[in-house]
């Protein structure tokens, strides 16, 4: 389960921490063509459409996040992805980038 919870959502028991691999594959994706309502969204400069998706980490789970690539023509289910840092204002969070694009 992600993000970490105090209890297992399936059985109510204790949870352990597992470090996910950096690399996975794109399980599905979509685009955000309009600026999300704020709050809860924190704008970071002028709005530009972005993409979001779920990346599958083999043997673990699928995690939702923003993608660094927003062009539908360059996104396809099954493509390799990796975790990168996403800086928005004074906050740092994660995003997923097609592998090869990150460096």
């Amino acid at each position, binding site marked *: 389960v992600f993000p970490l919870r105090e209890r297992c959502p399936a059985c109510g028991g204790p949870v352990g921490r597992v470090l996910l691999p950096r690399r996975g594959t794109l399980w599905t994706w979509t685009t955000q063509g309009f600026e999300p309502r704020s709050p809860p969204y924190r704008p970071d400069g002028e709005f530009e459409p972005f993409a*979001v998706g779920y990346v599958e980490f083999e043997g673990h789970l699928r995690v939702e996040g*923003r993608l660094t690539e927003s062009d539908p023509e360059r996104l396809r289910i099954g493509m390799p992805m990796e975790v990168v840092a996403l800086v928005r204002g004074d906050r740092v969070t994660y995003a997923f980038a097609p592998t090869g694009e990150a460096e």
Partner: protein
Amino acid sequence: VTEIAIVGAGIHPFGRHEGVSGLAMGVHAARAALADARVAWSDVQFAYGGSEDAGNADTMVADLGPTGLPFMNVKNGCATGGSSLVSAVRALESGAYEVGLVVGFDKHPRGAFQNDPADWSLPDWYGEVGLMVTTQFFGAKLQRYMHDHDIPALTLAQVAEKAFRNGSLTPHAWRTKPLSIEEILGAQMLAHPLTQYMLCSPGEGAAALVLSRREYLDRVPEARPIWLRAASLRTRRAGTFEVFSPSLALEIAPSPSVDAAREAFESAGVAPEDVDVAQVQDTESGAELIHLAECGLCEHGEQVALYARGETRIGGRLPVNTDGGCLANGEPVGASGLRQVYEIVSQLRGDAGRRQVPGRPRIGFTHVYGAPGVSACTVLGR
């Protein structure tokens, strides 16, 4: 088996109604349902009702009359109307009452729904970064579904084209202008693969039903009952793919729609193949396709041929969302589930006017699904 009848159905037009409160629309729908049933409000023994954003249903007694009846407020997300209906059915089945009213209404602000992560047990960063948007769930779930079942964007456009065509035949619908496949496909992309016209908008409206046990029909000889053969409500199980999920299991569990539909068909003793007219949740074009299969009304992937051949149109083998559904009526969350039942009652009675399904339909089905992973289904018959 206790038999429950819908003896009255009423609706307030959907859309935008400046200066009319959600509660006032609910009162309008309740009065219309009572008039249709030839039942006086003073004879109604109990009521369930609710909205998501437009107030407490029980305050309607200020307009309808404070008769002292038990009036339960219901707030259960997208299944608010379905929850009221299921609760009323159980109350009648218990034998505690013979006749009751259910009402659903809503009035949402313009634009996309706005949700607070804290209300969903989610961390603040989830909303701040821009993931707290319902349309992302629709787009992402659909993108994968189309990939798995080989469904083209054209089929999505065919769903929307049918919705607006049916809306143009429906007096109480919001969107009444037919749109071409090209207009729908060419509209602004909001959540790939969904364009502007493939997504419904939050809106306003109300619907109400008067329900009774069979014995009560002697008291209302002029009513034209439609039998509520089954009403089921189910919530999600571990591992389903729901809105606002920061992570998903590798194995996706069947949606609560599958459970609710199966239970409704089994309880009614009716097979999905027997359905003559259906209403399924079409929050967006893809939802209609997914829900038809989840409810057992077609196979996964079969939708492409079904829509290409026009089989879900009025006059087709399985007419779906004959009033234009959420796409043409908008989504006032508390009202949509009861609008669906209102539409099936109209169709089974032969009252649906220009949108009437030919061939005197006998069996109807309704399905709602929504946040946070809840579904309600009904089977209705003449």
